[in-house]
């Protein structure tokens, strides 16, 4: 009896071990089987970072694998920009996706995955216009300027028929209802870029500095892009700021840029990024961009988020370097940008900037 019982426990343990260990067995693809794409690349690279880039990274990973055969694997874990940069610095990730370029302090740190004396570089690969989206019955073509947006989101304008809004929209029928402001409850790159724009263009109204955390105690907070979209769709007379790709089902406001009402457009967003200067004092192949929020050319959309792929200049493991180089080149390529635009709703890079990114990516070793 006893031996039987012990035996059955042992059997359960054995079966359990086999069952658990077999989970991972499909992960290790045989290195020899990577001939279908016809390239010499093989191996796995892991990225961690921005959730805004999540869909685009998945698209690129799929496209990249299709082009290079089954021997290459790209994993991307959208834990967040901060987590991505930290993991990249500590060597836990081979590249990072981040809504902000490495800060001056971060760029001085030692990167565990990079070769000694090698630094990390920022490659802008993902551009997303930020929309001011609203849910008001019967209101179609709302026009807002930076001051009015700042007024609404800082709580100084509380009614839809406030004189500041009626002045910009003389023909629209605006309800007398209160404005329900919806903003992010979690720290995010979208908030960072939105507040950067307002802090630059509406200085007199938006008196707080740009930050990842929404700075005013105004309106309702919701978690994540989808949470904000749902909250806005579910409540009448609400308004929010959101990545354009997630604004489906909501009306999107026009923005007064340089005196003319401008419709949101991928080209306008890409144009602003292309015209903005690079951050000074960085390596030649580091393309961190200092977005110029004050551009006023026709069609420009300065409320824009740029997300970077952060990689080593020279990797400790040169095979990894080759993979990251090929992957970054693909992401910045016309095909990669178009695929991301189709899947994630991003704005494709301006061709000049794309060429610059390709040149910079080619220096990765």
């Amino acid at each position, binding site marked *: 009896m*006893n*031996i039987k019982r012990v035996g059955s426990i042992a059997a359960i343990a054995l079966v359990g071990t086999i069952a658990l260990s077999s989970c991972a067995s499909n992960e290790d693809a045989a290195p020899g089987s990577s001939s279908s794409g016809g390239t010499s690349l093989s191996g796995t690279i892991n990225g961690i970072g921005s959730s805004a880039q999540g869909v685009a990274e998945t698209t690129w990973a799929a496209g990249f694998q299709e082009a290079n055969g089954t021997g290459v694997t790209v994993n991307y874990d959208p834990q967040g920009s901060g987590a991505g940069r930290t993991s990249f610095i500590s060597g836990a990730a081979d590249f990072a996706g981040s809504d902000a370029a490495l800060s001056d302090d971060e760029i001085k740190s030692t990167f565990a995955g990079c070769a000694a004396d090698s630094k990390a570089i920022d490659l802008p690969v993902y551009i997303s216009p930020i929309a001011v989206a609203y849910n008001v019955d019967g209101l179609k073509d709302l026009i807002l300027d930076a001051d009015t947006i700042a007024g609404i989101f800082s709580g100084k304008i509380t009614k839809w028929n406030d004189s500041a809004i009626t002045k910009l929209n003389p023909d629209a029928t605006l309800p007398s209802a209160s404005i329900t402001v919806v903003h992010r409850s979690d720290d*995010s790159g979208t908030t960072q870029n939105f507040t950067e724009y307002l802090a630059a263009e509406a200085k007199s109204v938006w008196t707080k500095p740009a930050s990842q955390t929404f700075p005013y105690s105004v*309106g309702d907070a*919701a*978690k994540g892009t989808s949470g904000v979209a749902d909250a806005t769709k*579910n*409540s009448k007379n*609400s308004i929010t700021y959101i990545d354009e790709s997630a604004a489906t089902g909501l009306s999107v406001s026009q923005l007064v840029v340089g005196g003319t009402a401008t419709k949101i457009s991928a080209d306008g967003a890409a144009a602003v990024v292309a015209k903005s200067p690079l951050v000074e004092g960085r390596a030649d192949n580091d393309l961190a961009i200092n977005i110029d929020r004050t551009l006023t050319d026709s069609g420009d959309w300065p409320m824009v988020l740029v997300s970077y792929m952060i990689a080593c200049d020279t990797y400790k493991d040169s095979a990894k370097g080759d993979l990251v180089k090929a992957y970054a080149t693909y992401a910045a390529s016309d095909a990669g940008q178009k695929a991301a635009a189709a899947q994630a709703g991003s704005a494709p890079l301006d061709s000049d900037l794309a060429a610059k990114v390709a040149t910079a990516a080619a220096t990765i070793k």
Partner: protein
Amino acid sequence: MTASAESPTKTATPPKAVIRIGDRVFSLATVLSGSLILVVLAATAVFLIVQSLPALTAKPGQIPNDAANFWVYVGPLVFGTVWAALLALIIATPLSIGIALFISHYAPRRISQLLGYIIDLLAAVPSVVFGLWGVLVLAKFIQPFYTTLVNTLGWIPLFQGPVSGTGKTILTAAIVLAVMILPIMTAVMREIFLQAPRLHEEAALALGATRWEMIQMAVLPFARSGMVSGIMLGLGRALGETLAIAIVLSPATVINVFLLTSQNPNTIAANIATQFPEAQGVALNTLIASGLVLFVITLLVNMAARFIVNRRKAFSGAN
């Protein structure tokens, strides 16, 4: 003779217990599992304390939300955690007592069994589902009622405006929490009500008591400590609930008791869940330190529950 003299001495020393391999393995396994709990708890505590230290000693400006020090940062969160859990308890306690009494003393056996299963099933629903239900269905549905409440009873501080336009208020979060803690509270209370001595109940009925009077006289006094332990279990779960709150609540850095506005105090667990992905450096330590505070709060609640349950061990269903 010698044999008969020896035999009583033999029986006086008890025979050596036979220890089989199964006994050894089993006792070893239980000792190991028992001590593993302590090791895990100690490891968690050490991790929390070590990781918290930079936040506890941080200079002003390093802590998120422009807080002067860690305690200023965590204050509203502690308040929000306790406040949300308390509101949930206020809603869930009478409900769970009612459901448990219905199952144990009113419903026909078949219905009570079915109801018991359904309540247990509710406990198996993941919290993210409750969260999504709360934000997509409940908040939208209940928002007009909030508007009416603020318009008619706005002079009461609890219902002070301006009303939240999305319905993502602390009251909505408390309702969702209440639904989530209902199963465990009901299950504990049902067991205790069923344990009420049958003789007492019959005696009360024989003396001419109505069913309600019988429950008042025979069941509730007997079940008091068990009810408290049920409530404490619910409180424990409500304090630690993360995802549902993170999804439902519209948080702000405030301490207030307004139930229906957009500016609600956040809970510790939900705050960690929302801020963790983008937290770095001292901000990360701050989040972990707030986790330590939650750890201490839950520990205190559980110890209080233990204390109350142990005081009247014999009558509680939790032993």
